């Protein structure tokens, strides 16, 4: 089997879940690197080079709010879900549950 192809397919499959993973962790304030670490601890691997631009994009889409904290020695940009973001996240969760059920059903039928 072509491992390269499989890796590509897996990362494509995961790509759609990245937004969901990021939104799930942003009910409370997080800065880029702390979010990266939180996700890693929970076994969700996302590249730094993907996460940082993703945060910006989600903010420009109105799902996140950001604020610079310059009181510490290291200035940090904190992100948190906006009101729209919370609603969107909840809708996406419902969709996600539906996808899991549908996919499970299809796969189970096949393996029977």
């Amino acid at each position, binding site marked *: 089997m072509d491992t390269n192809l499989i890796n590509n397919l897996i990362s494509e499959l995961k790509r759609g879940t990245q937004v969901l993973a990021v939104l799930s962790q942003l009910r409370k304030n997080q800065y880029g690197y702390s979010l990266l670490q939180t996700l890693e601890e929970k076994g969700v691997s996302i590249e730094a*080079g993907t996460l940082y631009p993703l945060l*910006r994009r989600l903010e420009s889409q109105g799902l996140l709010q950001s604020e610079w904290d310059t009181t510490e*020695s290291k200035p940090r940009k904190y992100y948190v879900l906006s009101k729209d973001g919370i609603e969107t996240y909840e809708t996406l969760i419902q969709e996600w549950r539906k996808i899991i059920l549908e996919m499970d059903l299809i796969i189970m039928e096949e393996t029977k």
Partner: protein
Amino acid sequence: MEKNHIRNGFNYYGGNEMKNYIERYIYAVTKRLPEKVRAEVKNELQANINDMLPEKPTDEDIEKVLKTLGHPRVLAKNYETKERYVISPWFYADYISTLKIVMTIVVAVFVTIGFFEAIINLEQQGLFHQIVDVWASIISGAFNGVVTAFAWVTAIFWIIEHAAKTSNCEATWDLKDLPEVPKVNHKAKISKTESMIGLILGTIFSAIFIIILMNYMNVIAIYDDGVIVTQIFNTSVTDTFIIFFIISAVISIAVSLLKIYYGEWKINLAILYTAFEILSTVLFLIFINHPQLILPEVFDTIAFYMEIGSAEVVAGFEKGIRIFTIFVSVVVFIDLSATWFKTLKSIEQK
């Protein structure tokens, strides 16, 4: 004010050179982004890199962090919120197929122009130099053609791209807009490669023929020990034909281009091709049958060497020309018959 604060709060512990690398990395990312987001992305990246580095980072730490962030080009692309293209994938296939057609035509036209410019401006010099000149002109014509076609097609598609973006044509397409499936008739098809080769060879041979006709009639002669006994062709006759051969060559190139453009035999193309073929054949046959084309001295000389009468030589020569004339006519007739056979067959099928 805030920005200043951020810059001051950003501390490096690595060597100067490594610190420089961070700045260079950030610059390599932000320079590829729209101007209005550059400053913000720069601050973000600085903060993130700073966070990813340990308290007192070594040069290796800095290198590791920058490598983790990936190629600046990729990172910049990830930061891009909307896709930026000159020609988007939406139009790419059409762009390429248009480019192919336009490039073929424009290059052919430029090459033709280059060729005739070279012929018209030929200076009196050695044949080798003249051939080099003609070739240089043809090559520069081809190069100009490629660049011109590429620039125009790209610019036009770029405009279409922008127009399409605002008109939202993705949502409003109609079944009626779908193009007809072309009825490809393999018998009536004209091979592009064949036409191209025909065009190139035809151009080169006409060039050589016209150059010789214009400049070298005086060296085509019967020699005896390196001394010219007599010139063969009557220059006053050949000179009158030059303009006709040039016109014929131009039409020939135009017909070849049309063959490439249509790619199959159509009725109007067949008519044009027939008209040209007959005209050029007639021109050629008039040329070789012209009674004063060969100087009488030629016949006398041949008669002298062969030790027979001049009248006999002339009669033999005329017979040869007549046979050749019939031969050429038959070949052209067969070619035209085949063309019309293909054309009518393809019309019938439609």
